């Protein structure tokens, strides 16, 4: 039995394919269309899913959609009714897309895919809940979903047991932690639904003391939080329910100035506001999780929704709440709901037993040795071939140790927003200039943003003050932990200003080449940790194909590309005609 899940028309369109209870392919449309956070119908992601199994749409038994469009439209209409006549501009700009696309999902799916079968619509937060619980290692768990907004729900909790999920309570639009975070993100001059993680990275540069940060108490004027974690936003500080701008003038007055202009200087006030926002978010989430534990009496927790990508908070959950174990799937945001949709249909609606547990994120396109060699030969690219895996591992580790920057293209593309060793850029974390080098020559990112370390699971506890045993979400770079002080100066490029690191742990069975390269680097440097950053430049999606990877290397300062068993040196190949600097915008 095949079930296809589709998410689109909001942000991060994606598709996933389930075969007999197991996810066999999943990818976001942006990787194929090369448009970051692509919202359009995911034709290319669907094409990949079907082709990966050698099937056509006629072989698909069910198509699942990630929300109930009419309920969402009811919420949008309610916004216009509540905010008349202020919402005229948004009404004029958004209504055509509702009429032409969002309310015609059935005809779009049937026409675009030539699909004649059944289409099922799953509530958005149920999709989130299922995306986490049904692929988790737990038979029973408390479920918390927190995002910007689905149909009406913005925050929900419930319980999952076996095949069954019950979402017990929720908080509804316009009250949303996700939208609060996005509003301050917009206030700080970053792009909404894209740069929230930058605000999270900016926070440690601010004053993280609740007593002395001047904005911390002020932000509690914006949100009323009860002891049970329920909350409501004071809407005089927001405009997102009727305008295309999120913070209101009252918010600007409260935060002591106008919205920061993009690319302008980030001053101490901005950093302190980011810190206050992170602390407020953490306080609300801790109250929610404590309440959920009390209500559900479960020691296992699964989370989903965009707020579950807040890795700084995720790393504190097991310390600050009574939960003993945690699971978050790699694509916890809206794109990831398709995983939940297909599993909910298969396991819950159709009642099939759960047989799948997600243990790695390599669900995207794979290219075999022959395909890559054909690409290289066809384009007259100079390369050398490794004799075996041992040579590949040793050479890669040596290049990193010599402070070269390596593009690393192996296996299936990662599912979710993080590069996890299949479409990564690797470098030595021991090089104090690595961060500057990567930023100026390759990534063109804001200077305050940290780089992430990757470490083998058996070495993690030596360098990081992490939960033990290391939780599985750490494999997907979803947990931030303190770096032990003695290592701060030895791995400066991956130690953030507050002494933390957003580590990825890698287990040998997940990606042996990657695992062995890190171990080999450890033999050379005495520290088995590498910098792992996504294989892209700022403003571009992570690379998908060999062509994308080669193009990215030739347009940046990446020195070598290790693609399957081939080594390509940038200086041995003619420089491409494009300049990555030109594209270095969000």
């Amino acid at each position, binding site marked *: 039995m095949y079930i296809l899940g589709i998410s689109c028309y909001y942000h991060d369109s994606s598709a996933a394919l389930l075969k007999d209870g197991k996810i066999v392919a999943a990818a976001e449309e942006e990787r194929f269309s090369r448009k970051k956070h692509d919202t359009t119908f995911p034709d290319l992601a669907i094409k990949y899913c079907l082709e990966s199994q050698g099937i056509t749409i006629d072989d698909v038994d069910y198509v699942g959609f990630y929300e109930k469009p009419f*309920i969402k439209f009811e919420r949008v209409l309610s916004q216009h*009714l509540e905010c008349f006549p202020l919402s*005229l501009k948004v009404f004029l700009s958004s209504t055509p897309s509702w009429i032409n696309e969002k309310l015609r999902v059935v005809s779009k799916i049937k026409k675009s895919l030539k699909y004649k079968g059944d289409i099922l*619509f799953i509530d958005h937060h*149920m999709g989130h809940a299922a995306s986490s619980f049904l692929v988790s290692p737990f038979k029973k768990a408390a479920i918390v979903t927190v995002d910007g907004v689905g149909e009406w729900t913005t925050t929900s909790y419930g319980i999952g047991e076996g095949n069954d999920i*019950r979402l017990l309570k929720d*908080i509804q639009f316009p009250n949303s932690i996700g939208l609060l975070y996005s509003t301050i993100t917009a206030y700080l001059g970053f792009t909404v639904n894209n740069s929230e993680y930058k605000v999270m990275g900016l926070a440690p540069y601010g004053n993280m003391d609740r007593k002395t940060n001047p904005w911390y108490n002020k932000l509690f004027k914006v949100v009323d939080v009860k002891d*049970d974690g329920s909350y*409501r936003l004071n809407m005089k500080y927001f405009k997102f329910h009727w305008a295309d701008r999120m913070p209101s003038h009252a918010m600007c007055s409260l935060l002591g100035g106008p919205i920061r202009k993009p690319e302008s200087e980030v001053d101490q006030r901005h950093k302190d506001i980011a810190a206050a926002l992170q602390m407020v978010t953490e306080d609300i989430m801790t109250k929610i999780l404590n309440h959920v534990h009390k209500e559900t009496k479960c020691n296992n927790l699964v989370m989903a929704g965009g707020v579950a990508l807040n890795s700084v908070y995720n790393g504190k959950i097991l310390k600050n709440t009574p939960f003993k174990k945690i699971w978050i799937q790699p694509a916890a945001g809206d794109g990831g709901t398709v995983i939940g949709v297909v599993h909910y249909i298969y396991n819950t*609606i159709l009642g099939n037993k759960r047989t799948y547990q997600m243990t790695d994120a390599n669900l995207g396109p794979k290219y075999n040795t022959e395909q890559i060699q054909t690409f290289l030969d066809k384009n007259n690219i100079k390369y050398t071939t490794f004799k075996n895996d041992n040579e590949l591992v040793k050479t890669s580790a040596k290049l990193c140790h010599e402070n070269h920057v390596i593009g690393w293209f192996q296996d299936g593309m990662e599912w979710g927003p993080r590069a996890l060793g299949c479409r990564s850029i690797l470098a030595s974390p021991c090089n104090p200039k690595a961060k500057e080098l990567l930023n100026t020559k390759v990534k063109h990112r804001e200077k305050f943003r940290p780089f992430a370390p990757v470490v083998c699971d058996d070495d993690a506890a030596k360098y990081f003050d992490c939960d033990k045993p290391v939780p599985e979400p750490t494999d997907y770079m979803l947990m931030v932990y303190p770096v032990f002080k003695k290592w701060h100066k030895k791995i400066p490029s991956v130690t953030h200003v507050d002494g933390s690191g957003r580590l990825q742990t890698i287990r040998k069975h997940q990606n042996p080449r990657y695992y062995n390269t890190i171990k080999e680097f450890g033999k050379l440097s005495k520290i088995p940790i590498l910098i792992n950053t996504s294989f892209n430049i700022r403003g571009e999606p992570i690379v998908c194909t060999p062509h994308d990877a080669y193009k990215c290397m030739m347009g940046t300062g990446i020195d070598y590309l290790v693609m399957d068993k081939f080594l390509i040196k940038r200086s041995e190949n003619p420089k491409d005609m494009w300049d990555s600097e030109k594209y270095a915008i969000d």
Partner: protein
Amino acid sequence: MSFKAFKKGMHNFTTNISIIINTILLIIVYFIGVGITFIFAKMVGKHFLDMKLSKGSYWKTLNLKKKPMVSYYRQF
């Protein structure tokens, strides 16, 4: 002027006309449909969004669980 340029000009013209007509129609719908409903709602004190702060918990009972198969075919 070539036929291609004429065709392109006509295409732009029709696109612009349709944007203008759509905008006029949407303004009418907004002020008559949304506006009149808004006035009635104000008269009866109906609110469409939960925005009032209160003393009690803000959690709402959702109780979302497995439903009959037919409900998943619906978009609402």
